[in-house]
């Protein structure tokens, strides 16, 4: 190409860029000018919208604890930086007051805001893409009839180059369209309904499915667990993963409804999910979710086995247990109602991956308030009293005695978890 040819090409590219910038500026200008929407809905429609918004777990990201409902501001940690849930009250400037039901459905299912800007996939539009139009309209009617809150959206802390939102269009092209494989086998009406509640509305896979290098959900291993998002790992909730940790339909449904079941209590982000979402669902819908999670033919749940003869090698761990744990968890792991969970057969103790068990020992847990009057007491962390070898010894005692797991936790692994905390 000649020098003049190069200049022409660059000039055309510049003109194209300017036109594109002008077009998006105009789009934004008009998007912020559109009429405020007034949505008339019957009380039944609004109640249906409220129910579906609970099933879609909107509050967890769009309502700060103790803050105005749906006014946004909840920080979400991601490997790419911190992203904040936005204001989805009908406020004209910061919220969705100018959204039509078409705009709302488009944003929910395609991840594109009314002014044309692309949302980060922290908004689970990849999961929501299968939301029915009727359900979207019901949620829209509910949200548009909530009080408008003039609360500005918080700036996101996403690092370069992921803060270039146009890049997400490419990401969408690669990953957003793919149809997710179901996490279990089934075809009954309950299974179908459960799949919609779990995969689409509940977007469980956003945390529980492993992700690839670009943050895309691994479609081949739905709900197989993810340890990349927060301090605690989201465990494997495939039928097999649940069954080997002792879950069955009854315990799973009780867990979703109340946050407390024999194998575990809901903690960390899952406690929020139970509080603002699953505990508000009807029992038939919870049963459907359970049917989908375990499949139409659930695998037999593995009974709790206590190791009888304690090996001498585990004795130091047993002593740590008696000194620091037994006061609340019971002399032999039986737990105390409203105080501390049973460790016999506890889902995290039975997890082949000791990560969550080690995190709990090191960091402790805050007080848990469950729906209704149920609670669990705060647990102190033992990072100061136990060194890496002590924590490994304690974790191994718990895993062997109460979890039928190998006593394979090494001090190095504990150190990795301990130091990850101080990043």
């Amino acid at each position, binding site marked *: 190409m000649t020098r003049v040819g190069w200049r022409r090409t660059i000039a055309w590219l510049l003109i194209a860029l300017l036109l594109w910038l002008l077009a998006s500026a105009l789009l934004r200008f008009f998007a912020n000018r559109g009429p405020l929407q007034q949505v008339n809905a019957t009380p039944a429609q609004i109640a249906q919208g409220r129910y579906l918004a609970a099933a879609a777990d909107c509050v967890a990201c769009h309502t700060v604890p103790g803050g105005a409902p749906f006014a946004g501001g909840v920080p979400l940690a991601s490997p790419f930086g911190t992203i904040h849930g936005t204001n989805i009250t009908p406020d004209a400037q910061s919220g969705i007051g100018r959204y039509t039901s078409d705009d709302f459905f488009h944003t929910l299912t395609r991840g594109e805001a009314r002014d044309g800007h692309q949302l980060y996939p922290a908004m689970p539009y990849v999961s929501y893409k299968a939301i029915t139009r009727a359900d979207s309209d019901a949620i829209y009617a509910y949200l548009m009839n909530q009080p408008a809150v003039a609360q500005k959206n918080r700036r996101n802390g996403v690092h370069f180059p992921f803060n270039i939102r146009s890049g997400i269009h490419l990401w969408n092209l690669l990953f957003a369209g793919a149809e997710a494989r179901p996490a279990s086998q089934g075809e009954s009406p309950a299974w179908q309904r459960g799949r919609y509640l779990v995969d689409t509305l509940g977007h469980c896979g956003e945390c529980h499915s492993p992700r690839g290098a670009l943050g895309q959900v691994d479609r081949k291993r739905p709900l197989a667990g993810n340890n990349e998002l927060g301090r605690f790992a989201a465990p494997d909730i495939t039928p097999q993963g649940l069954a080997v940790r002792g879950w069955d339909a009854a315990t799973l449904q009780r867990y979703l409804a109340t946050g407390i079941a024999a194998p575990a209590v809901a903690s960390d982000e899952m406690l929020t999910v139970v509080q603002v979402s699953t505990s508000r669902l009807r029992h038939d819908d919870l049963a459907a979710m359970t049917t989908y999670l375990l499949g139409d033919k659930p695998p037999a749940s593995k009974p709790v086995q*206590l190791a009888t003869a*304690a090996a001498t090698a585990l004795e130091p761990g047993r*002593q740590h247990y*008696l*000194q*620091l744990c*037994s*006061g*609340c968890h019971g*002399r*032999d792991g039986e737990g*105390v109602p409203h*105080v501390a969970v049973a460790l016999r057969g506890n889902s995290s103790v039975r997890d082949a991956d000791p990560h969550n068990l080690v995190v709990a020992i090191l960091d402790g847990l805050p007080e848990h308030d469950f729906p209704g009057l149920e609670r669990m*007491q705060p647990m102190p962390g033992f990072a100061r*009293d136990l060194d890496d070898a002590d924590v490994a010894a304690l974790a191994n005692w718990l895993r062997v005695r109460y979890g039928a797991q190998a006593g394979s936790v090494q001090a190095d692994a504990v150190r990795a978890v301990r130091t990850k905390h101080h990043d």
Partner: protein
Amino acid sequence: MSAPAIKKRALSLQVNGKRHGPLQVPEDMMLVDVLHDYLGLTGTRLACGQGECGACTVIVDDADGSREVRSCITGAHFFQGKRIRTVEGHAQRDDSGAITALSPVQQAFLDHFSFQCGYCTPGFINAATVLLERLAKSPVAASEVEATITEALDPHLCRCTGYVRYYQAVKALVLDTPGLVRENTR
């Protein structure tokens, strides 16, 4: 499933400056029971038995200074070789063991009529003592005194609701003791 057979192990520890042991103590016994039943130190109170109320709090002294530990949920053998203080250890005594002067915290609680039934008082005394010792090493700004006291006393429960007078006693003591408070830098 039967509970494992109770085994005893030797325990040596130092309480209020006095060495005890080796004592043969069941391996799953909590410290509060050893204080009551083996050492005759009944000033430490057992109330909730689940680490929630703070009445059973004792002080552990180690290289990092003093800290609170709940004796009802912490196994006695955790304290092997450790130095601890209980409510009996704060007052000054003469050679015969008779009390000659209360500790500043104890005296402040009396002066402010802080408690009624007194069941929570040993825990509050130990919490306030740990707080004062911490402030002596790292004083807080005058503007942070109230929040610091609230944070230190907050975990302790008092069913006679003596909270306000406990708080007032500790605040007066913190402000009147030289070296615990920095002047506001701004």
